[in-house]
């Protein structure tokens, strides 16, 4: 069985897709594009797909990951293009590598988030960031299935910075550019690196923390996008590509997929 790791996005209005919704859409796309899926054994066989660490509903993402098992060998790039074509715009498959290394989920150590705060000025945001980072710990509350939970949102934050306005930040999805129009005021943009810990600290927990430490209360909902997730370089505070190891291994020892045509017709 050949296994392929895919990186996909949730862009623009399709960021409101829940993880369950995405799973259904993805499995239908597999059928439409006739990908030779490997199926689980048992009474009701399911295609072999495993998902890692999905972003919350309503949050955009440039860096979601999943892994599929194939009954037949395919060229990863050709497969990526085929699947991407079959999914709606916004749910885009943007990278594919053949699996060569184990323990992928453990490699997803941290996420880089972009948080756009329409109606919040840069001065307000900078002040709040300063207070938040100066705190040893910032207790926040979140309503979970098991009731109200109180935990520290500060410890997991590896970095939190303001993106200076002179830097032209390319809008990520088709609708992201509209956010500034809504308020007419400024729009502070934060970059946030959060370690994947238990309990998970999400961008909205950090926003709760900014509210409690610095009274930062955005007038409209923040627009949050995951820009990357992967190994965390503690020195620089950057999140690196989790597919790099597989890619390097594939370049060192190309598989039989180097001749996809020959394999397919055999």
């Amino acid at each position, binding site marked *: 069985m050949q296994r392929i790791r895919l990186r996909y996005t949730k862009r623009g*209005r*399709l960021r*409101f*897709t*829940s993880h*369950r*919704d*995405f799973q*259904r*859409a993805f*499995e*239908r*796309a*597999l*059928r*439409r594009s006739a990908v030779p899926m490997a*199926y689980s054994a048992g*009474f*009701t*066989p399911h295609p072999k797909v495993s998902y890692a660490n999905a972003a919350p*509903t*309503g949050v955009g993402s440039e860096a979601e990951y999943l892994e599929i098992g194939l009954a037949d060998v395919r060229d990863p790039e050709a497969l990526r293009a085929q699947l991407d074509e*079959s999914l*709606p*715009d*916004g749910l885009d498959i943007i990278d594919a590598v053949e699996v060569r290394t184990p323990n992928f989920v453990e490699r997803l150590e941290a996420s880089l988030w972009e948080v756009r705060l329409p109606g919040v000025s840069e001065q307000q945001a900078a002040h709040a960031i300063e207070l938040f980072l100066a705190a040893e710990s910032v207790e926040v509350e979140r309503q979970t299935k098991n009731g109200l939970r109180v935990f520290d949102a500060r410890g997991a934050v590896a970095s939190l910075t303001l993106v200076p306005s002179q830097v032209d930040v390319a809008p990520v999805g088709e*609708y992201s550019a*509209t956010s500034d*129009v*809504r308020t007419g005021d400024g729009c502070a943009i934060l970059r946030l690196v959060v370690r994947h810990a238990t309990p998970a600290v999400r961008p909205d927990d950090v926003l709760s923390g900014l509210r409690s430490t610095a009274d930062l209360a955005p007038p*409209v*909902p923040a627009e949050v996008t995951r820009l990357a997730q992967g190994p965390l370089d503690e020195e620089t505070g950057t999140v690196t590509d989790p597919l790099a190891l597989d890619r390097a291994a594939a370049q060192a020892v190309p598989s039989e997929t180097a001749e996809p045509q020959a394999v397919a017709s055999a």
Partner: protein
Amino acid sequence: MTVESVFPRLEALLPHVQKPIQYVGGELNSTVKDWDACDVRWALMYPDAYEVGLPNQGVMILYEVLNEREGVLAERTYSVWPDLEALMREHRVPQFTVDAHRPVKAFDVFGLSFSTELGYTNMLTALDLAGIPLEAADRTIDDPIVLAGGHAAFNPEPIADFIDCAVVGDGEQAVLDITEIIRAWKAEGRPGGRDELLLRLARTGGVYVPKFYDVEYLPDGRIGRVVPNAPGVPWRVSKHTVMDLDEWPYPKQPLVPLAETVHERMSVEIFRGCTRGCRFCQAGMITRPVRERSITGIGEMVERGLKATGFEEVGLLSLSSADHTEIGEIAKGLADRYTDDKIGLSLPSTRVDAFNIDLANELTRNGRRSGLTFAPEGGSERIRKVINKMVSEEDLIRTVAAAYGNGWRQVKLYFMVGLPTETDEDVLQIAEMAKNVIQKGREVTGQNDIRCTVSIGGFVPKPHTPFQWSPQLSAEATDARLGKLRDAIRNDRKYGKNIGFRYHDGKPGIVEGLLSRGDRRTGKIIRAVYEDGGRFDGWREHFSYDRWMRAAEKGLAGTGVDVEWYTTRERAYEEVLPWDHLDSGLDKDWLWEDWQDALEEVEVDDCRWTPCFDCGVCPQMDTQIQIGPTGVKLLPLTVVK
């Protein structure tokens, strides 16, 4: 005039609502056309939540039929849940389409498909959110034409104040004809305003415009007569019938949503109409004659639809799917074709006979055999004669034995309570039948662990059926009868534990009955309920019987009639019924004879296999039944790589 998307304003509200994905559109196979390149624009609504409305075949078909035409666009809109409704009111976001998020008010036509009367309050919510006046009389040239269709539109009188027009019957050709009339009127510079357009539509004889008909009442509250009040408007409005379903292979590109919906499958309508003649069944009466899609037409739709959607299950839809003349070949052919692709096949509506077990076996060749559903509808042989559901207890037991013998472990039986002439004795027979089913199952399998679920719905008399004159059983009497049946099942030591019992109380049925056989005076009730906060009346958690009764008292004040008058009262032969001027093709005298036959427990055959029994549809509508067999088989598909 370019119309702006409301999405940027809606987007800010979405993080605060449940299941936001249902409001963003972007479904696979959905269409967004250039607004300015089209001159006739339809907003189509299924007035219920997205999860129920999206899979609706009627809306999906018309959406595609319209969008295929050059210069015509159609977009969809659904009822928003109360959480979003509140935010939309607060932030002044109007009712929008999910395709391009255009405001509904900007369209030429706002078409609503009513499968059930319980969607009426949702129509008022949508109109109000759209900024369209609730009453047709208050609308101006800037408002869309509000058009009702679907089965409930066969009696549009309760919503006559709120709609501009109604179309009864099949919509495929009708929407195209209406489109042409609107296009011509707009091209001429909209002469005569709304009234001229409505008049042109009414004069076709196929579009009902309530404002061109006056209803006169007798002193006792009954209707005296319904009279056209404008020149050239016909006395009766005809239903539309599409002949040759193979010419209308829609939906070709079924919509595939991202959100979860009530039907996670692709559907192919294998025939339209039904001539079984079950007297309670409005669908069977108003969709005559029977028109089959050919076996090859079905094969092509399944193949094309699966490629376009990626669904794992295909439902073969109709009012009684096992009645297709070539259903055996269809089931076998499809099962052969899709065995390796792990595609499941289902027949949603089937009758009670052993042939069905063979079919069910074929359809589940590789899958699991969990439960089978049958609908004897009536508990006693006598009541089944009254309703013309021709199935004997012997048939049922034989069928059930075959099912259990083939590995099925659970049988679900569907019944109605409150049928005309029904007594406690008829209903208590349901318990006996369930016991006999379990008894037989134990006998055939040698196991004690056999389940039978009895599911009961309350009977509501419907327009255009032989039971349109029948009294409806009151909510109290319905509940009392259900209570006796429940006790009879629960108290049975030998079988009681193996029988599941599902039922609804009688109250929602009374409201449905009020709206089904209501007239223009009932519109006041609907409006009062809406203004009192009534929404999503088809949902138990939103429905309030008390709210409806309060509104009825207010709305009917001074009319001399009340809820009982509309529901539990028996009508006489001479009474003018509110829907008599809408022509379903059924001869009213034939319906009356069939009602008399029902009371005398006389059954009537199916005209597919026996001579015509003169229901009137074919001569009246110039149609005929279209059935096979064609003798063609589905060939295996060759795999092209």
